[in-house]
């Protein structure tokens, strides 16, 4: 059976792996950038702290990652786990599992709720 060996799943796995390499080996925290919401309004945006979370988790500091952004830490862990699983899947020659649309829809809804919860946490702890 001729299966496509580098499709969208592999692109996303590559992006996830690249995010680990960047967070682990590049000085991304030294980039002079401030979130506009935090700078102008004084409150963190919903995605504030994700870079810090990625960098902290890439260096093995789970507590700092969770403190910077719980959703960022979860996203980093999930992305890197997905990259590893995709490499294993390719090595095993298995096709990418098709996810049913209702499951994807539920995941999208869960993601939106998680984003809101993360924002509430950031507002409560960092505002």
């Amino acid at each position, binding site marked *: *059976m*001729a*299966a*496509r060996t580098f*499709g*969208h799943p592999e*692109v*996303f796995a590559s*992006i996830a792996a*690249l995010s680990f390499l960047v967070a682990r080996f590049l000085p991304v925290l030294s*980039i*002079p*950038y*401030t979130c*506009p919401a935090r*700078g*102008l*309004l004084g*409150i963190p*945006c*919903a995605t504030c702290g994700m870079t810090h979370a990625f960098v902290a988790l890439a260096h093995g500091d789970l507590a700092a990652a969770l403190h910077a952004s719980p959703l960022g830490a979860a996203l980093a862990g999930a992305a890197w786990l997905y990259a590893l699983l995709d490499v294993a899947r390719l090595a095993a020659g298995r*096709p990418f599992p*098709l996810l049913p*649309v209702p499951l*994807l*829809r539920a*995941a*999208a*809804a869960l*993601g*939106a709720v998680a*984003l*809101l919860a993360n*924002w509430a946490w950031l*507002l409560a702890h960092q505002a």
Partner: protein
Amino acid sequence: MIARCARCQGTFTTDRFGVQTCPHCGSEILLSDPGARPAPAQPPAPGAPWTPPPPSSAPPAPPAQPGPPPQPGPVGGPAAPAWGAPPPPLDAGRPPSLPPPPAAHSPSGSGPPAGGWIPPPPSGPPSFGGPLGGGPPGGGNGGPGDGGQPAPFAERATRGFFPAFFETFKLVATQPTEFFRRVRVDRPGSAVLFGVLAGTFGTVVSAVYSFLSMSAAMSGMREMVQSMPAEQGRFMLAFVEGLGGKMQLFEALLAPVLWFITAYVAAAVLHLLLLLFKGAPRGFDATLTTVGYSMGLLVLLALPVCGFIVAVIWMLVVVIVGLGEAQRCGPGKAAAAVFAPVLLFCACCCGAGVLGGAGAMKAIQQAVEAAKGQGTSL
């Protein structure tokens, strides 16, 4: 014979034609007999214009008929990818004014043509190739394997790179409705390449402009900052300084990678939101194709002063129109998917403002009561 499922894109081996079940997703698919298909479409003539949709005098689209799912496209076999009859309409809320995709012209006058490839209308200008008709016969919601007309940029090998690029840009910018209604969505590679090239060009030119004008901009910013609160002024100066010099060189060098990642991540987020609103019947490829071609408007970043604003606003409009057409979900759901993050942000800011205001009122009341308790008049 190896066949590909039009719904899940999975491939499988079979030794017969006709109706069969995809072993990956369980969809019932119809593998057409190549002996029944007509001659394939002629390759495009270099420089031929992208054929616009037939004018209103063209034969109207036949009504959508429920039928079997899209036919699979054999891989490596002799037959070209083919369409089947469309699945039943998925979006009952689609505006009635939104016309269905162009109708298929059956050689026999009824039903889809064998093989699914449709000749260009005789009265129209010569097509540059590929099938006409942006969707399955009847204008239903096709699966990811639906046919359509390749974008000019997808045929850059025959049309020439720059003519194909400019023709595609013109169509995306000025006729997004027609373009995304008809463009093929099952091969998003060209769309992503188009968007990455456009974004890279715009970013590099914008970086050059910014680098040349940075000193003047900084002096003007320092004057402006003096009239701002100290905290915001410090932030603005740091923000503008951070955008200059090394940062711009960094952006220009990494622009291709950054825009490639942006295309995929943006498409993924938009697709999840479309799924949430039940507006993604044609799959991720359609979303990625729309995002990729819409990113072509990032060429406008090269415009000095107003390039960013113009590019962003125009691209948002094109993305909304394009998703509505490419996903056959209508502009409402597309706009909801695009603006949901913005609305979420605004709603949460308003909520935070209300909570903050309530807290402030409570603190004022407590202060007033404390002052009354001490016999102080406020």
